[in-house]
């Protein structure tokens, strides 16, 4: 019963609260820019506007049309595998690995949709996305495996409960930092938004999208931010867990908000990197995450 409720809550969070979080971040961005910024509900207005706009016809084949739907679906599905207040709605042994696969589905859909559009800009963007996935997915896998080793369980929830009951471990601090660095790329925030890069390749894979399909992609990007940050704070910063579910969830949400503001601030103080620079940077992050894994194996 609890699992069902948390599952519904997670999906609601990804669908309804995620655009609102982006509205908050737009305000943060505006403050850093010395601007007034748009109203908090602006992402909702944007989505609503896109929903009633004419859809792009023409380059319409099956993949082009299905990609945005599967993309948002993958994010929604992922929301059922992320812990919330220590509870993983669809938890089973090995859920962490399944989660990684599902989370990879979203960017893959974006690439496929972009490639199906036939625009050379989309090709360049999809290329970049795939290259970046290849360096960032290992970080997610390594860090989650480290957490599983530490918690002596393939169940995400068990690892979390184990970690809550113990003091911060060096290995998981290292992995947490690596994971947080990867989040910046996963949610397509500067300085790693190369796949979209408005000024360079005109939103890359999204260049030919408009209307409803574009709205779905936007929505899944908003959702991804919450999914990744919740996974991050629950797995690597799980304290305190008071045992009272609503209070625990509230604490998690506050932590997610703080982490999101941090992500936005980082995005606003760096220029966009180039693909080679990004690859070099994340090769370092993979090494860092591996160090965390070794520490976890050593029991630190």
């Amino acid at each position: 019963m609890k699992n069902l409720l948390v599952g519904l809550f997670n999906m609601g969070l990804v669908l309804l609260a995620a655009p609102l979080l982006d509205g908050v971040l737009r305000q943060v961005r505006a403050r850093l820019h010395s601007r007034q910024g748009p109203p908090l509900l602006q992402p909702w207005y944007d989505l609503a506007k896109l929903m009633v706009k004419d859809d792009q016809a023409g380059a319409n084949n099956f993949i082009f049309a299905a990609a945005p739907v599967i993309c948002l679906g993958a994010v929604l599905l992922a929301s059922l595998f992320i812990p919330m207040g220590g509870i993983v709605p669809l938890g089973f042994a090995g859920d962490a690995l399944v989660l990684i696969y599902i989370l990879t589905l979203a960017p893959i859909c974006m690439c496929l949709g972009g490639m199906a559009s036939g625009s050379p800009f989309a090709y360049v963007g999809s290329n970049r996305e795939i290259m970046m996935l290849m360096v960032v997915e290992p970080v997610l896998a390594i860090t989650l495996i480290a957490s599983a080793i530490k918690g002596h369980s393939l169940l995400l929830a068990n690892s979390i409960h184990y970690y809550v009951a113990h003091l911060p471990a060096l290995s998981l601090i290292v992995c947490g930092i690596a994971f947080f660095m990867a989040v910046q790329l996963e949610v397509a925030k500067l300085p790693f938004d190369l796949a979209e890069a408005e000024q360079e390749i005109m939103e890359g894979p999204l260049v030919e999208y408009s209307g409803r399909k574009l709205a779905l992609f936007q929505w899944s990007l908003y959702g991804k931010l919450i999914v990744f940050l919740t996974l991050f704070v629950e797995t690597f910063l799980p304290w305190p867990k008071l045992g009272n579910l609503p209070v625990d969830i509230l604490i998690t949400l506050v932590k997610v908000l703080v982490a999101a503001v941090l992500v936005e601030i980082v995005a606003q103080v760096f220029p966009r990197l180039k693909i080679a620079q990004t690859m070099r940077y994340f090769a370092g992050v993979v090494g860092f995450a591996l160090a965390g894994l070794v520490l976890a194996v050593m029991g630190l």
Partner: protein
Amino acid sequence: MTAESLISAIRQRFPGTLLASQQPNPSRLFLTVAREGMPPVADYLFNTAMARLIMSVGTDKSPIDGTYEVSYIFALDRENLIVSVKEVVNPADPRVPSLTNLIPGADWHEREVYDLLGIVAEGHPDPRRLVVADDWPEDIFPLRKNVPYSLRPPRVTTLKPPLREPKENEKKATVLSVGPFYPTLEEPAYFRLYVEGEKIVGSDYRGFFCHRGIEKVTETVLDYNQVPFIAERICGICGFVHSACYCMAVEQAAEIEIPPRAKYIRTIMLELERVHSHLLWIGLAAHIIGFDTVLMQSWRIREPVMWLAEAITGNRKTYGMNLVGGVRRDIDAVMCEQILSVLAKVETEAKELVDAAVGDQALKMRLQNVGVLSPEDARKICVVGPTARASGVAIDTRKDFPYLAYPELDFKIAVQQGCDIWSRTLIRAEETFTAIDLIRQSIKRMPAGELMADVGPIPPWREGVGSVEAPRGEASHYVLTGPDNRPYRWRVRAATYPQLQAVPRMLDRMSIADFPIIVGSVDPCFSCTERVIAVDATTRQVRTYKKNELLALTRQSLRQVIQK
């Protein structure tokens, strides 16, 4: 090298070539050479005297003496001498020897002379059309005097965009079409990039979408004092540069000495434009590489300068201050105080921003060793302004050809040796502060007195070349005075004209991610280059359309299209 030694050197080396020479003032020399003598003389000027090609001007003088003329205007930057070398062309056989193989920077100039006057540059390596629209008829050359300014050529059915065939190494590359409308190009321009993966292996350019023939309008319907207002509308950022430059060319041709106070007022306005233009560029460049925080802060700092311009002239942009012979508005003591206080604030804030940006390692990673233009290429393509100075070519019109109040002011020009975008950024940052300092000096030294000189009738058939250091580099205007109270020929060369020709070299072997910032790094101003005009010159009336009227008009034209 003085004018006399230059003339005697040409006489000695190429006997019989020099047909006439004229030196109306110490810093301008007008030579006429025989047609076949042009390449050796140009070779001597460019390679031995180390002159820089400013522009070439084609003039149709057939109604007067039955000839065409083509002048190549060179600058000897170290000697404060601008040399115009003219050759006379027979309209029955309009051909001149091409100089492009000698001076790569002559490329566009010769293509433009063909497009507008039909004078063929023989031996030009790439004689594609440059300026006129794709559907312009092959046999109409708009700047010929027998073509009416209001000519509407018949519609053609086939379009031939003047893009080149891919070279051997480009055949297998992917074609990436950038433009004509693109997020980081504020004006229409089309770049065709040949890319392999992320690497650019070749590029082609088609511009001049905004060419509307303001030179033609000037030569046919406007008079001397109307031109400054249209000249100012050439550019949306450095408009004052163009009106001042035009006025200086006419004043020089007519030997009008403008009052000292007017000189200082023009100087102050020019430097104010530099301050806001450089701050604009810093913001745009940051935006191009995704650094919007710098964009917003830099434009916030810039805004008071725009308000200041509005307080001085009544307008944020397009000041309408210049006339031949002086300026129309004074800057009084109260305004001077206001300028100083605004600049003090701008200076502190800009300093904070620049210090933060210069220390930013991530910015350096994006900008260093990107868009490299070697000093040799910079000289060959004759680039100007910050683009040249970043490649170690120490030229600045304010120092080399001192005009207005600059001879009396104390300043150093910024030069960097890095040849990359980072150097161009540092130069622009430094120049912002130099400009603020120059305004302070000007305000301190500004003498009292008249604003306008007495301008009598302007004698015909005199030539003048005005050069002004715009924020983007030297802008040059050539004026040949005419008999009808208007210029007989007016040629505008903005700084972006040579700069854009250097872009293919900067792009070579760079990545797609670098493309926008490389184009942005020359601070391109397409409308300047293409000489845009947005005013109805025939009726000179402004008509405001209401929304419904506009809708009706659109629908009407749509119906016409459908019916066809």
